[in-house]
């Protein structure tokens, strides 16, 4: 394969890694956001975090891998993206640190204030990344103010209308996703409440998705690629269909509704990524300064090596992660929580 084919392939993989990260950690972040609202008492709260227990860490590695793959395949984009989006990424980082530690440490002490403190960490550590990842991606879709002198934005310039709408879209995608997850993975009253909540949230999800799609037309150039190659419209169409299917399945099969939600999240990311091509981060000032797969990629040789690594190992990773999900496919029970020998959160 020639150099350009590899660059395009890695553009696809770059999008895929982010999409899978949001699909998986999406319900972790969403569950952490819903946590204070659905978790009426300590038992409910423990139920919620124990549904995430065996999987959240493996989900978060998709973020590390998405970051690492960006570094390996598009080092210049990696370097500039992280130095330009310094403050939001720093806040995301702190949030994720506290979220992870909170899951692990909350149950390690019985005092009320100890638990209350970690409860705050779980909520903020989940809601903040959900919102800020959306804001960051919204701004990437729209382009960052980059020219010969570098980057001209800051945290506040990122909080523009389109950035905020994308942020809200991410939040609503994740919390609907999580409401479905919690209702599948718990039983009784908590599951019932999650189910009812998911129906309400879905209405907001639909409204925000529609606003996002319209706003995208005005705020970004994402649709140009679709007009040039109308075949690609299939991706946003599938996404919208999946979004509608969530509502259809909510009354029939929660598992199907959850899978529809997975497809919706993958679809949203890919809808954006296809529109970006061949940019990784477009410049909103002058397209000459856009970071593209052509002007920021690694060498032909490195891309080849990384392709072999990814094709070899990612399927293995998927196999054992799916295995892990099947081991813990059943809802969390009270016995899981209160068994003195269990290591539950």
């Amino acid at each position: 394969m020639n150099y350009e084919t590899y660059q395009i392939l890695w553009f696809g993989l770059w999008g895929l890694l982010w999409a899978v990260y949001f699909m998986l950690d999406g319900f972790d972040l969403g569950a952490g956001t819903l946590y204070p609202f659905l978790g009426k008492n300590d038992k409910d709260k423990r139920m919620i975090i124990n549904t995430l227990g065996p999987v959240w860490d493996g989900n978060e590695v998709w973020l590390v891998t998405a970051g690492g793959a960006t570094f390996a395949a598009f080092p210049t984009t990696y370097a500039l993206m992280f130095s330009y989006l310094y403050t939001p990424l720093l806040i995301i980082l702190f949030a994720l640190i506290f979220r992870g530690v909170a899951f692990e440490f909350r149950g390690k002490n019985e005092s009320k204030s100890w638990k209350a403190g970690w409860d705050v960490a779980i909520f903020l550590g989940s809601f903040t990344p959900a919102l800020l990842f959306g804001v960051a991606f919204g701004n990437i879709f729209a382009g960052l103010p980059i020219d010969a002198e570098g980057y001209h934005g800051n945290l506040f310039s990122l909080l523009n209308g389109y950035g905020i709408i994308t942020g809200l879209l991410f939040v609503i995608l994740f919390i609907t996703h999580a409401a479905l997850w919690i209702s599948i993975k718990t039983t009784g009253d908590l599951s019932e409440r999650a189910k009812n909540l998911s129906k309400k949230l879905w209405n907001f999800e639909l409204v925000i998705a529609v606003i996002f799609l319209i706003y995208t037309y005005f705020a970004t150039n994402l649709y140009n690629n679709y007009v040039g190659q109308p075949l690609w419209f299939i991706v946003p169409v599938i996404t919208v269909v999946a979004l509608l299917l969530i509502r259809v399945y909510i009354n029939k099969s929660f598992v199907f509704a959850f899978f529809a939600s997975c497809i919706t999240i993958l679809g949203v990311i890919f809808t954006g990524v296809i529109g970006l091509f061949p940019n990784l981060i477009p410049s909103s000032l002058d397209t000459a300064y856009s970071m593209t797969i052509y002007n920021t990629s690694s060498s032909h040789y490195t891309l080849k090596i990384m392709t072999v690594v990814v094709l070899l190992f990612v399927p293995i990773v998927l196999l054992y992660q799916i295995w892990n999900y099947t081991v813990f496919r059943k809802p969390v029970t009270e016995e899981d929580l209160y068994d003195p020998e269990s290591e539950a959160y």
Partner: protein
Amino acid sequence: MDVLLLARLQFAMTAMFHFIFVPLTLGLSVLVAIMETMYLKTGKEEYLKMTKFWGKLFVINFALGVVTGITLEFQFGMNWAEYSIYMGDIFGAPLAIEATVAFFLESTFLGMWIFGWKKVSKKVHLFAIWMVALGTNMSALWILIANAWMQYPVGYVINEELGRAEMVDFGAVVFSSYAWIKFCHQLLAGYTVAVFFIMGISAYHLLKKQHIELFKKSFKIAVIFALIVTIAEFFVGDWHAYEVSKVQPTKLAAMESLWETSEGAPIYMVSLPDEKNEKNYFEILPIPKLLSLLAYHNPNAEVKGLKAFDKSERPPVLLTFLSFRIMVILSFIFILLAILGYYYLKKDTLVNKTWFLKLLIYFIPVPYIANHLGWIVAEVGRQPWIVYGLLKTSDGISINVAKSQVIMSFTGFLIFYGLLGIIDIYLLIKYARKGPVEAV
């Protein structure tokens, strides 16, 4: 303070904080896996209790190791963008491979291990902890391949047009001798932390005369391991210094504070560098020709002194020198204590040696210090280069980043990490003191 110094301090601080948790993870994962293996082989409940007790401490420690590791990945881009652009073609690959082959393995199977006691068969459960151990140890390999490349760049060409280094030989990068020596050196150092951790906590309970059987067994596993790893580290350390002398002569000269190039160079048991005047304040008790012998395996070999290099190319001497010295002295003490522990255990007088048990408790932090000193030698000793001979640290920093951003993030890290560190140590002590949960 300028941005460069702030960014360097920040990297040092976040990397060192991360490295409080990593060495224990490396060793304890393997030791817990061994304990669980023994449980399955013998069927004795004692080993199950042991596995759970040490496993709990492992998990508390692991949590912080994971989350603080992400900081480093972020920081390459945030503060060191020019470095990342220049080196990303080579440096990014092992980082991405580390995530793909190691991080997924350890985190997925750790989830299965913690929550799977009653959900999977005993064999699958054992398999899970071995996968965690394999994952953590493999992650060390890949990150050290990346770091070794910064110490000793191989398998690359410089692309003048794009202004960056490009990989041309992946095999040379992966099988770099420097990487594998470093890997051995670090694994043994990590295991040393873990064995002294186990011996120290076991000593606490033995002193209190509680759960004696369990902690004697734990101690036994640890002390046997301690003998092997501390003595092996003696040879690997020597091998590492030999490699450094070949590829990083300025680092070697700083490690020994050797100013003048000389043949048959001695090692002074006691000396102290005076950087300003390019000499040592004093040099006492020389062992003739030892430095030439260690560095080149030839007693008469010429060793380059610091004065052979331009001032702008020398690392900070005092810090490199002292860190190296103290690390080496500590490594001898580790061997001594391992032998002593083994001896007392064999003679079955361990429980009566109150002074020794007390010493071991207070000794828990010392191997951690040795690990950090080793990394100070590695990283400070590489200065002024971020990639030895290719890129200066001062040329690696992000252009676009404002001082205020670095100050803000640095302050954030100091506060949050301080808080997390205190909480983590509190929990480790709490659960270490509590002892094993009685099986129902």
